[in-house]
C-alpha cells in the first residue's frame, strides 16, 4: 500500500544510483566468487559423476559409480575410521583441556595475562612447525618423549613408526596446538556469566565445587557445544598434521579422509574419484553445520576457520 502510494508520487523503492554503485562495489568479490567458488562447486559435482584420470582426455560418465565404488573401497573406510578415531580424541581432549585451563584462569589470578599468553603460543605457531618439532620429540630413539619416559624406567614405543601409537601421537600434538584457541573462547563465555548468580549462591552457602557444577557448567553449555562443533568440523578436515608427521602411515594406520583425497586426486590423479570423496566430506560437514545452526545457534562461526 505504502509503496504503491510512493510509486504514484514518482518515488521508487530503490534509488537507481544506489543500485549501480552497489553492483560496482560488489563486482570484485563477485568475480572471485564466480570463478573460484561457484564454478568449482558445480564442476566438482560434475566431476564426481565422471571417471577421469587427468592424463587421458576421455572423461566417461559413470553416474553414481564413483560413490558406489567409494562405499566398497576398504581404503576409504579405513580413512573414515581413522578420521573418527582422531576426531574423538581431539574433540574430547581439546575440549577438556581448554575448559580446564579457562576455568583455572578465569578468576582471582594475578598472573592471568602471563598464562594466557603462554597458552596461546602454540596457536600462533605454524602447524607445520609444530608437526616438525613434535616429530622430533616423538623420535623413537633420540626423541625427548622417550628420553623422559626412560627417566621413570619406561621403554617408550616407536610412536610415529608404530601403527598402535601413531594416532595417539597425532591426537596429543593436536591437543597441544589447539587448546589455547578454545581456551580463549571458553574465557569469553565465562566472562559473559553475570556475577549475580554467584552472589546468590554464596548467600545460599554454596561451595566452590557446587558453584562450578550448578552454575558455571550449565551456563557454559552453549559455548561448550559450539566448541565441540567447531572441533568436529575441523577434525574431520584434518590433513596437515597427518601429512607432515606420518604421511598417513605406518601401514595407512593414520590416513584420514582428506589425506586419502589428496592421495587419490594428486598422486593417482583420479579426479572424479577424489571429487566424490570431497563431496561425501562436504555433505557430512554440512550436516554438522546445520545441526549447529538449528540446535546451538551462532551461525557460521567455525566454518571459515582453517587448520
Amino acid at each position, binding site marked *: 500500500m505504502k509503496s504503491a502510494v510512493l510509486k504514484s508520487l514518482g518515488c521508487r523503492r530503490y534509488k537507481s544510483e544506489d*543500485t549501480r*554503485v*552497489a553492483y560496482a*562495489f560488489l563486482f*570484485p*568479490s563477485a568475480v*572471485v*566468487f564466480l570463478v*573460484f*567458488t561457484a564454478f*568449482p*562447486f558445480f564442476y*566438482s559435482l560434475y566431476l564426481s559423476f565422471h571417471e577421469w584420470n587427468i592424463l587421458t582426455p576421455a572423461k566417461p560418465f559413470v553416474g553414481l559409480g564413483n560413490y558406489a565404488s567409494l562405499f566398497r573401497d576398504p581404503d576409504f573406510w579405513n580413512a573414515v575410521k581413522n578420521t573418527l578415531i582422531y576426531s574423538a580424541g581431539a574433540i574430547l581432549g581439546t575440549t577438556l583441556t581448554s575448559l580446564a*585451563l579457562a576455568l*583455572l*584462569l578465569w578468576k582471582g589470578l594475578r598472573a592471568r595475562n602471563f598464562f594466557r*599468553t*603462554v*597458552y*596461546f*603460543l602454540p*596457536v*600462533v605457531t*605454524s*602447524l*607445520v*612447525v609444530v*608437526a*616438525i*618439532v613434535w616429530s*622430533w*620429540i616423538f623420535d623413537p*630413539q633420540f626423541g625427548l618423549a622417550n628420553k*623422559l619416559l*626412560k627417566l621413570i624406567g619406561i621403554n617408550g614405543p616407536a610412536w610415529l613408526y608404530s601403527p598402535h601409537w601413531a594416532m595417539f601421537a597425532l591426537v596429543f600434538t593436536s591437543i*597441544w596446538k589447539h587448546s*589455547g*584457541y*578454545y581456551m*580463549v*573462547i571458553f574465557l569469553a563465555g565465562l566472562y559473559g556469566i553475570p556475577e549475580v548468580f554467584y552472589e546468590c549462591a554464596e548467600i545460599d552457602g554454596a561451595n566452590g565445587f557446587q558453584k562450578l557444577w550448578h552454575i558455571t557448567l550449565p551456563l557454559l553449555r552453549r559455548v561448550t557445544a*559450539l566448541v565441540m562443533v567447531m572441533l568436529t568440523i575441523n577434525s574431520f*578436515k584434518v*590433513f*596437515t598434521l597427518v601429512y*607432515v608427521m606420518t604421511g598417513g602411515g605406518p601401514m595407512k594406520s593414520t590416513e584420514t579422509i582428506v589425506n586419502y583425497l589428496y592421495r587419490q*586426486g594428486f598422486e593417482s590423479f583420479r579426479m572424479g574419484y577424489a*571429487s566424490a570423496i*570431497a*563431496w561425501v*566430506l*562436504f555433505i557430512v*560437514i*554440512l550436516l554438522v553445520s546445520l545441526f549447529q545452526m538449528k540446535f546451538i545457534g*551462532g551461525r*557460521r*562461526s*567455525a566454518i*571459515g576457520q*582453517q587448520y
Partner: protein
Amino acid sequence: MASNIDRGRYIRSAGLVGVKYLVLLSGAAAVAFPFLWMVFTSFKGPSEIFTYSFKLLPSKWRFSNYLEVFEFIPFGRMFLNSVIVSVVITISQMFTGALAAYAFARLRFPGRDVLFYAYLATMMLPEQVRIIPSFLLLKWMHLIDTHWALTLPWLAGPFSVFFLRQSFLDIPQSLLDAAQIDGAGHLRILFQVIVPLTRNTFLTLGVFTFMWSWNMFFWPLVMTQSLTMRTLPVGLAMFKSQMGTNWAVMMAASVLAVAPIILAFFLAQRRFIEGITLTGLKS
C-alpha cells in the same frame, strides 16, 4: 568460633590457590618445553642429537646449523613467497571486503539480503571441494606454480565481507548523511569516513587474514610444484620428508620460520588473540 571457621576457610582457599598455580605452571611448562627443545636442538651438533643421554643445553653452541638451512633449501625465496602471498591476500581481502561490506551495509538495492546470506552460506563449503576444480582451472590458465595460483582465488572472501559489514552497520547514519550533504560520493564516504572510524576492525581482520594465509598448507601444496615457488610451510614439510633425520638443521629452519610471528605476537598480543579467535567469538 567464627574466626576459626574463617581461618579454616582461608587456609583451605590458600591451598586451593597453590594447587591452581601448580597446575597452571605445569601446563605452561608443557607448552614452553617443546619451544625450548626446538631452540636448543637447533644449536646442537650430531653427537649431541644422536645420543641416548638426556641433556637440555648444547655443550658447544653450533651456529652453523642456521647457515646450513640456506644450503639445503631456498629458505629466503620461500620466505619471500610467503610474504608476497600473505601481503597480497591480506590487502586485497580488506579492500574488496570493504567495498562489498559497504554495499551490503549502507546501500539499498534489490536482492541485497538474499545475496548477502547466500554469499555467507558459501563459508560452509570446505576448501577440499574447491581445490580439485580450481587446480584444473588454474592448470588450464597455465597459472599452476605461480604466485597467481596462490593469490587469485583468495583475493576476496565472504568472511571479510561479513566481518566488516557488522562494524559498518554500527556507524550512525547521521554521520554519513552529513558527509553526503558535504558532497562526498560513496567512495569518499567509505574511505575517508568509514574506514578511519573502523580502523580497529580492519587491524583485527588484517591480523586474522595474514596469519591464516601465512599458515595455508593444503592449497599451496597442491598449486605449486617447484622448490622455488613453495611457501614456507610447504617448503619446511618438503624439507622434512627429504632430510629425514637432520633434526638440528630442521629445528634451525623451524626457529627461523616461527621467530617473526612469535615476535609480532609478543608486540601485539591482544590484537592477535582477538584476530585469531575472531571466528569463534563472533557467535
